[in-house]
C-alpha cells in the first residue's frame, strides 16, 4: 500500500503535467526537458541543481511545493501541519470530490497549499507554499482554512509567516464559499499585524484573482520571482474589456515592481538568503 503510494509519487514526478501550458512545470518527461522560453533542451538533473531555473536564459520553471520547501527550508526541519480538513462541497458539484481524490493520488498532495513550520538558516518560521499542480493552486475552503490556521499558529508561537503564492484565484467549484476565504485570510493577516509579527508574501507564477485580492497583496514585504505573472483580472478578460492587445510586459513581476506593488524581484537562487536577511532585519 505504502509502496504503491511511493510508486505513484514517482510516476507523478516523471509526468509532464504542464504540457498544455507554455510555462511548464519543473516535472519533465524522462531525463530531458525543453525550456519554454529559449527552447534549449536541458538535462533534468542540471535544471534541478540550478533551482529549476534555465541555466541558458534564466527562465524560472514553476516549482512544486515539495521542491520549494526543499529550496527554502533547512534540511530535516520542516514539520507539516496535519489538519485533516476536507471540503464539504458546498455547491454539490458532481465529480468535484472525485476529481480531488484523483489529484491527491496523482500528486501526493492533500490540497493546493502545503503549510508547516521549518527553519531558514536556523530561523524558525511558519511557511505556506501554494502548488499550481493542484487545481491551479485555487483557493477553496481547505486552502483558506490552512492559510488562516497557519497565521493563527504563527501568532500563538510568535513566529514570522512566509507565504509563497501560486494560484489562479478563488476556486470556482466551491462558489461563494471560496470568495469568503478572501475575507477570512485577510482578517487573519490583520490579527498578525496587531500581534506585531512579520509577514512576507512571495508572488510566484501565476498569482491571480482572489488570492491577489487577499493575503498575497498584504505582506509587510512583498517579493516576486522574475517574470512571474501577477494580477487581479486575467489577461484574457482585460483584453476583452479594452478590446486591444495588452502592452508588452503587462502583469509581470517587473511591471508590479515598477508600479509600486512589489518590494523586490528576487531570483530563485537568492530567495532563501533574502528571506533570511529580511527576517533578521525585522527582529526586535
Amino acid at each position: 500500500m505504502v509502496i504503491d503510494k511511493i510508486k505513484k509519487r514517482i510516476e507523478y514526478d516523471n509526468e509532464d503535467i504542464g504540457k498544455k501550458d507554455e510555462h511548464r512545470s519543473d516535472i519533465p518527461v524522462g531525463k530531458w526537458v525543453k525550456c519554454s522560453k529559449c527552447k534549449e533542451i536541458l538535462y533534468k538533473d542540471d535544471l534541478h541543481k540550478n533551482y529549476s531555473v534555465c541555466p541558458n536564459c534564466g527562465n524560472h520553471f514553476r516549482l512544486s511545493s515539495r521542491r520549494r520547501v526543499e529550496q527554502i527550508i533547512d534540511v530535516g526541519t520542516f514539520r507539516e501541519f496535519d489538519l485533516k480538513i476536507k471540503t464539504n462541497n458546498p455547491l454539490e458539484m458532481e465529480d468535484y470530490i472525485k476529481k480531488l481524490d484523483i489529484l491527491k493520488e496523482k500528486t501526493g498532495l492533500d490540497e493546493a497549499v502545503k503549510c508547516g513550520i521549518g527553519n531558514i538558516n536556523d530561523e524558525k518560521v511558519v511557511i505556506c507554499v501554494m502548488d499550481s499542480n493542484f487545481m491551479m493552486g485555487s483557493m477553496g475552503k481547505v486552502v483558506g482554512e490552512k492559510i488562516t490556521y497557519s497565521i493563527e499558529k504563527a501568532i500563538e508561537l510568535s513566529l514570522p509567516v512566509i507565504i509563497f503564492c501560486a494560484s489562479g484565484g478563488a476556486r470556482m467549484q466551491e462558489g461563494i464559499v471560496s470568495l469568503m476565504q478572501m475575507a477570512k485570510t485577510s482578517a487573519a493577516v490583520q490579527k498578525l499585524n496587531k500581534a506585531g509579527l512579520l509577514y512576507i508574501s512571495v508572488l510566484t507564477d501565476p498569482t491571480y484573482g482572489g488570492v491577489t485580492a487577499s493575503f498575497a497583496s498584504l505582506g509587510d514585504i512583498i517579493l516576486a520571482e522574475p517574470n512571474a505573472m501577477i494580477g487581479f483580472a486575467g489577461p484574457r478578460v482585460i483584453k476583452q474589456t479594452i478590446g486591444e492587445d495588452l502592452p508588452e510586459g503587462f502583469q509581470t513581476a517587473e511591471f508590479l515592481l515598477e508600479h509600486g506593488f512589489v518590494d523586490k524581484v528576487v531570483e530563485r537562487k537568492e530567495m532563501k538568503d533574502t528571506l533570511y536577511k529580511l527576517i533578521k532585519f525585522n527582529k526586535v
Partner: protein
Amino acid sequence: MSKVTAWEKVKIAREPDRPTALDYIENIFDDFIELHGDRYFKDDKSIVCGLGNIGKQNYTIVAEQKGRNTKENIERNFGMPNPEAYRKALRFMKQAEKFKRPIITFIDTKGAYPGLGAEERGQGEAIARNLMEMSDLKVPIIAIVIGEGSSGGALAIGVGDRILMLENAVYSILSPEGYASILWKDSSRAEEAAEKMKLTAEDLLDLGVIDEVIKEPKGNAKQDVEKMSNIIKKKIIENIKELKKLDIDELTERRYKKFRNM
C-alpha cells in the same frame, strides 16, 4: 405565485430600472451629504460615500452605485469600481471609526473593473486592504446586498457584522456568465450556472454567508421604492440597536469568527 428561479433573480437584480443605492439612500436617511475622492488619485463615482442620519444616529454610508441611465452609467463605469473607489471607501470607513459612526454599505456591482489602469493601480491590493481593514474596524458595520453582488468587487465593501440581502438580489463568486465560461468554457450556459451557484438570498442564508433576507414589496423592489426603503430602514435601525449593545472588542471578535467559520 410560483417560485422565482435563480436565473430569474439574476435578471431581476440586473433590471435597468431596479432601484439603485442612491434611490434607497435618499429615502432611508433623514439627511445625506455626499463627500468625494480617495485623496490619492481621483473621485471614482462607481462608489458613493457620505454621511447621513436616521434620527439622532449618524452613519457613514458607502455604496456601489450603478447609473440610472446611459449617461450616468458611463459616468459611474456601470457600477464597476476601479481601485480608487475602494480606497475612497476605505478612507471613509476609517473616518467612521475615528468618529465612532456605524457604517452602512450597499452592494451592487457586476464586479471590480478589469481594465489596464485598474491593474496598474493595484486592483488586487485595494480589495485586499479593504478586506483586512474592515475585519477589525471598531464600529458596527452592516452590509446590504441590494442588486448584483459579484466577486471580490462586492466583498471589498462586504466584511460586516451583519450581511443583509434583498429577496431578489444575488451574491456570488463571479457572474453566472463568467462562471460558465471558466468552468465549462461556455458562457452561454449562464442559466445553468446560476441554478448551481447558490447565489440567491435563500441559498446564502442556508450556507450561513448572509444573516437575513429582506422581503421586497409585491415581489420586486421596483414596484415601490419608498416602501422598500422603509423596510430597509427598519432593518438598519433594528440591527444597529443590537450591535451597539456589544462592546467593541466583542463586536470585532464576533466579526472575525463570523468569517473565520465560513
